[in-house]
């Protein structure tokens, strides 16, 4: 019995290792996944060590307080404050462009009166306040933005305290002169208590507030929720699994002989390939419609302002996924290779393209590497529409890139396809 088991084992191992393509994929696939996901997630796990969060800072302050806040931020290991870009002091317009271009996600704009507000006379009749603009790419997740804002808020309170306290104490001593009547002393005591209980801002409106906004040109009415973040990513991840179905179907037809029967029929190879592609393309479109529609109906997710843009991106994304199916069908020689190749390509592309982990937390080189995947372009195009409020014309360049991917995949796939 043992000999039979060994014989069976030997036979299957021999079959497995004779399929070198399948072997390569089996071993390469987990390795690629480990490498890509480890680098992709390094932004989450290594914050504060060697992967600081990059913050753009536009300092318009005419005093020294904003510089002090930025210096303290920069001294924190978690942040790297950038006040210049390519040797030029940052302006608001430059910062907005860097965000629009996807090079950075967040910029702080300190107003010209920042120091003046913090250093104002407590006795002044009219209390001055100001705002720091926080310009955020709407596609950036709240989990990323909120901790930054919290840190900044804490720093501002400390700065406010440092700037205001000496003047405040002087002010109170002057007001608490010995000749003050008892009832007035009680009144000032109450005011001081109130001030301390509400923080040094005296329970009033804070001197400095944070105002969150988006770069000019983006139309965001609401900040993205978890569905707007996750639905496009996982939808794109999902539609590319059509690759497995399509390539598997071709290999199955070849194995079972129906492919030969089709080759004998009076039908051109182009028609034959188109007939194999179309059903999977339609399945992809249906997938997209269901995923986006269900997310909108069940979770109230906004679909943006441009139905035409959604249709264009969906048509292009589905074409890319189907084209990749043809490529895998053209390259794979066995069904084992289809399975392995699909998992390898899809997981790598999905991870690199930001479907699992937002690309903005990835290291810069990995963000750039992600652009070789159609997933990154499709995801970005969907987020332009769903989150950034863009329209059809804005996403057309990305639709063009997706169409180019589809053409490339389809072309190589047809070139390598074996009609036999």
């Amino acid at each position: 019995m043992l000999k039979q088991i060994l014989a069976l084992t030997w036979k299957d191992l021999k079959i497995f290792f004779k399929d070198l393509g399948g072997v390569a994929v089996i071993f390469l696939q987990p390795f690629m996944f480990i490498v890509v996901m480890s680098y992709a997630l390094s932004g989450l796990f290594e914050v504060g060590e060697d992967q600081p969060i990059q913050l753009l800072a536009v300092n318009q302050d005419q005093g020294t307080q904003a510089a002090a806040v930025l210096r303290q931020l920069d001294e924190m290991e978690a942040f790297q404050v950038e006040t210049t870009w390519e040797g030029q002091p940052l302006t608001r317009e430059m910062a907005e462009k860097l965000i629009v271009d996807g090079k950075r996600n967040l910029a702080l704009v300190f107003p010209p009166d920042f120091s003046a507000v913090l250093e104002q006379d407590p006795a002044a009749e009219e209390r001055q306040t100001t705002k720091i603009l926080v310009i955020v790419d709407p596609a950036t997740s709240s989990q990323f933005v909120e901790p930054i804002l919290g840190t900044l808020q804490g720093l501002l309170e400390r700065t406010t305290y440092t700037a205001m306290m000496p003047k405040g104490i002087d002010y109170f001593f002057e007001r608490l002169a010995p000749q003050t009547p008892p009832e007035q002393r009680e009144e000032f005591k109450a005011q001081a208590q109130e001030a301390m209980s509400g923080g040094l801002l005296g329970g009033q409106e804070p001197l400095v507030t944070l105002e969150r906004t988006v770069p000019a040109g983006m139309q965001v009415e609401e900040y993205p929720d978890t569905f707007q973040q996750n639905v496009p990513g996982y939808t794109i991840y999902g539609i590319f699994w059509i690759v497995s179905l399509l390539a598997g179907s071709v290999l199955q037809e070849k194995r079972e002989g129906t492919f030969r029967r089709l080759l004998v029929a009076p039908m051109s190879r182009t028609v034959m390939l188109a007939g194999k592609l179309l059903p999977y393309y339609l399945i992809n479109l249906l997938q997209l419609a269901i995923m986006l529609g269900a997310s909108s109906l069940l979770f109230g997710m906004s679909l943006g302002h441009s139905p035409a843009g959604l249709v264009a991106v969906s048509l292009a994304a589905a074409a890319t996924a189907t084209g990749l199916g043809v490529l895998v069908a053209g390259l794979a020689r066995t069904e084992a290779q289809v399975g392995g190749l699909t998992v390898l390509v899809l997981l790598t592309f999905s991870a690199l393209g930001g479907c699992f982990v937002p690309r903005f937390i990835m290291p810069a080189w990995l963000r750039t590497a992600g652009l070789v995947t159609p997933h990154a372009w499709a995801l970005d195009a969907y987020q332009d529409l769903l989150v950034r409020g863009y329209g059809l014309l804005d996403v057309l360049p990305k639709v063009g890139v997706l169409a180019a991917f589809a053409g490339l995949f389809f072309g190589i796939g047809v070139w390598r396809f074996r009609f036999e």
Partner: protein
Amino acid sequence: MPSSMIEINRLVKKYGDRVAVRGVSFSVLEGEIFGLLGPNGAGKTTTLSILATLLAPDEGQVTIAGHDLPRDADRVKPLIGFVPQELALYATLSAWDNLAFFGRIYGLRGPALRERIAAVLDLVGLSERAGDDVQTFSGGMKRRLNIAAGLIHQPRILFLDEPTVGVDPQSRNFIFEHVERLKAEGMTILYTTHYMEEAERLCDRVAIMDEGHILALDTPKGLIGLLGGGVIYVGLPGDALETLLPAIRALSHVLTASAQDGQLKIETSDARPALLELIELCNARDVPILSLEVLEPNLESVFLHLTGKRLRD
């Protein structure tokens, strides 16, 4: 005189360094069942694949119904039906859906399609199971549906590649009857098999193939006639091979006799009386018979006679 439907002249097909078909020539007449008989690897399926437009020949000329291949493949395709060796069907679709799909591929639509589906289902005896998924069919039923799919568009020429492999005897007979009905309707059929009894029963003419060559081509009767009344292989002690040879040649039912690989090969006009005469002669000369084999006159024996190998080797 029927016209020629298929003409093959000095056909050669190579797979890399391996030559699968080596200068094969034959023609198939209209309304004829032509058999390609040979063991696995003989080159039958490659030849059939070239005729079915699946492969292009490396050398030689192929003409079907007056059209050259592969140049006129588009004109040939509607004329031919192809039944591959595999069960080339969609297992999760019903018999009806399979036939409807293949019919539509050949341009059939509407009532014409429905009529053809009903006709071929009736022909292969599967009308009652039309709505059932193919995966629920027995092996024999799948084979019959496989043939039906090749007939859906009423081809003039049908290529059947080993259509009875893995089929039980009852289904095999059923398939034979279908093929005979198709011939009666005037269809030209090219039939590959390695079962000699199929070739003997069905084919008007048979080409025996081995290692890419055609070794013999004739009617089954003509091929069997190559063996006369049968062949006897008899093993005798070394010196008796030569001393007994003149006497054996003189026996009344012996046509030829020769020493071959340590035994005598005796071609007879009738094997049974020749065998009795041989045994009597050996007894009379006190020569022991070391081994004895009698090849009955059939295609299996003809193949063995021509190649020294059995069909199922």
